[in-house]
């Protein structure tokens, strides 16, 4: 399986998803947390999954980890990891090929165990090496995430570490599983800007050095600009645009992607009103007719309300829109 990359050439696909949906039954009727998401991630890339609250970005990550609630219905036309269908075995890959880096490192670490013990918990589960060997591996992994004086750190508790250091420990734990695909769910949101930038630089270095692949779930366009090779924009549980991160940031094609960028505070001169997006996302209990963005779209046409938008673009940049040309 091949999929397009930034450079236009094809690369080996690590993850291919078509038509992923996650539906959760509720008293108000089925909640469509994810309606239909296509995702194609090449080996060795950092792929941004961009969206606002309620667009299904975290639920997509959970589906890939096999961590959706037991009563949720997960379906997909295609869901292949490294060429193998994982529609029934996503949970088996968790902690082996796929690992999660969550938003809040303080919540991801156990407050009453030392860093060394928590690293060893992971290593012991994944190898039959001797205790001394595991300890040496743990120190090496902590050092690889840029933590100074790793042997001392092994004796520390999470509360003795800063947020940035805690997130590096969580990344070291993810590496300790031997996973080559990391799902990073807003990994820098809980961190200071400069510390977040360092953690992103670390992820980039690990991708280069260790051949990792990263799915970067984020709402922050600065994160996309700083570290992502390609990105997919989600809206109301649908993947509405996918392409090289630089193309999406500078020439977005889907009106929602364009509106999201225009709403950023540096998109207008100081003191001028920003182009806020009117209205709200459709409730996830609602069935969408036509284009999901049509009630809020500045370029809406009559057929947008009734017909699903066609797929446009070619190669590595694709989007869903009735507009033949490009976003307003």
């Amino acid at each position, binding site marked *: 399986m091949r999929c397009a990359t930034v450079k236009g050439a094809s690369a080996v696909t690590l993850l291919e998803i078509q038509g992923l949906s996650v539906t959760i039954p509720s008293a108000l009727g089925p909640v469509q947390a994810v309606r239909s998401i296509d995702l194609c991630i090449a080996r060795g890339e950092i792929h941004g999954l961009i969206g606002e609250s309620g667009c299904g970005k975290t639920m997509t990550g959970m589906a890939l980890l096999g961590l959706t609630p037991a009563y949720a219905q997960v379906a997909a036309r295609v869901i292949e990891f490294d060429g193998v269908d994982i529609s029934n075995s996503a949970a088996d890959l968790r902690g082996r090929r796929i690992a999660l880096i969550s938003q809040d490192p303080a919540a991801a670490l156990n407050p009453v165990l030392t860093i060394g013990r928590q690293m060893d918990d992971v290593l012991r589960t994944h190898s039959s090496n001797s205790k001394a060997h595991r300890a040496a591996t743990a120190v090496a992994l902590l050092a690889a995430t840029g933590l100074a004086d790793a042997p001392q750190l092994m004796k520390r508790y999470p509360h003795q570490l800063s947020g940035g250091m805690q997130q590096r420990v969580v990344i070291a734990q993810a590496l300790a599983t031997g996973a080559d695909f990391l799902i990073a769910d807003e990994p820098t949101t809980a961190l*200071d*800007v400069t510390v977040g930038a360092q953690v992103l630089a670390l992820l980039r270095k690990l991708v280069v050095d260790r051949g990792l692949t990263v799915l970067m779930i984020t709402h922050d366009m600065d*994160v996309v600009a700083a570290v992502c090779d390609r990105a997919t924009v989600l809206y109301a549980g649908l993947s509405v645009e996918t392409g090289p991160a630089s193309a999406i940031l500078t020439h977005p094609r889907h009106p929602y992607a364009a509106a999201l960028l225009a*709403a950023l*505070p540096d998109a207008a001169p*100081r*003191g001028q009103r*920003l182009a*806020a*997006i009117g209205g709200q996302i459709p409730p996830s209990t609602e069935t969408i007719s036509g284009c999901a963005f049509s009630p809020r779209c500045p370029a809406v046409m009559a057929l947008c309300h009734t017909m699903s938008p066609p797929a446009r673009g070619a190669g590595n940049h694709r989007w869903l829109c009735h507009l033949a040309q490009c976003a307003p």
Partner: protein
Amino acid sequence: MTAPLVEVHDLVVRYKSRGLFAAPFKPAVNGVTLSLPAGSTLGLVGESGSGKSSLLRALLRLVPVESGTISLGGEDWLAIDGPALRRARHSIGFVAQNPFLSLSPRLTIAQILAEPLLARGDKPGAEMKDRIALLLSRCGLPANFLPLRASELSGGQAQRVSIARALALSPRLLVLDEPTSALDVSVQAQILNLLLDLKADSGLSMLFVTHNLKVVAHLAEQLMVMRQGSVVEVGATERVMADPAQAYTRELIGFGRRR
């Protein structure tokens, strides 16, 4: 240049260390001087531990000040105490980061907006109801939101309510602590637009505290960057954004998307 509304001179805030013989903590705010002209906005930018929240708390008279002066509208703000302080507090409105934590889940929006008025001693009645509806509409929400509770609102709507509450007593200064950090980008734009409108309509003075330099640069005439209790850079927004004097400021500006 109009007369300054807020003037802070050489302010030091230090928290008490525990234990009789424990070494004193380093000051959380270490000799900060600032001046906010009436009708203008100062953006206070800093990361965790920079002292921005301590400076804010000192301005709100929530923590004791070790040394230095604060004047508000020409008066010695630190000299006021007791019932006089209670009255004087009306001149500062405060908006917190998370509206769902700062709005009572138990009360309706109408009750939430009535609280500051009742605390001031206003009599409940038709006049107060009108005033509350006007406050809410100034912040972009129609009167049919009044019987709702915070849990029925979106993040952006809830933040509009907490801005309306902060404006209830017609303060001279609005202090905002990370008012958009908990919001989505498209909602953040709506709140920034609301603040721009309030600034233009009523000449509100604002102190906007955030870790996101780009957000506040959109509103503020002046920027002040703090690090480890001290001011590392201060100046007109255009100057700081175009030509930051400090490497640290450059780091904050340089992250992410280029325009």
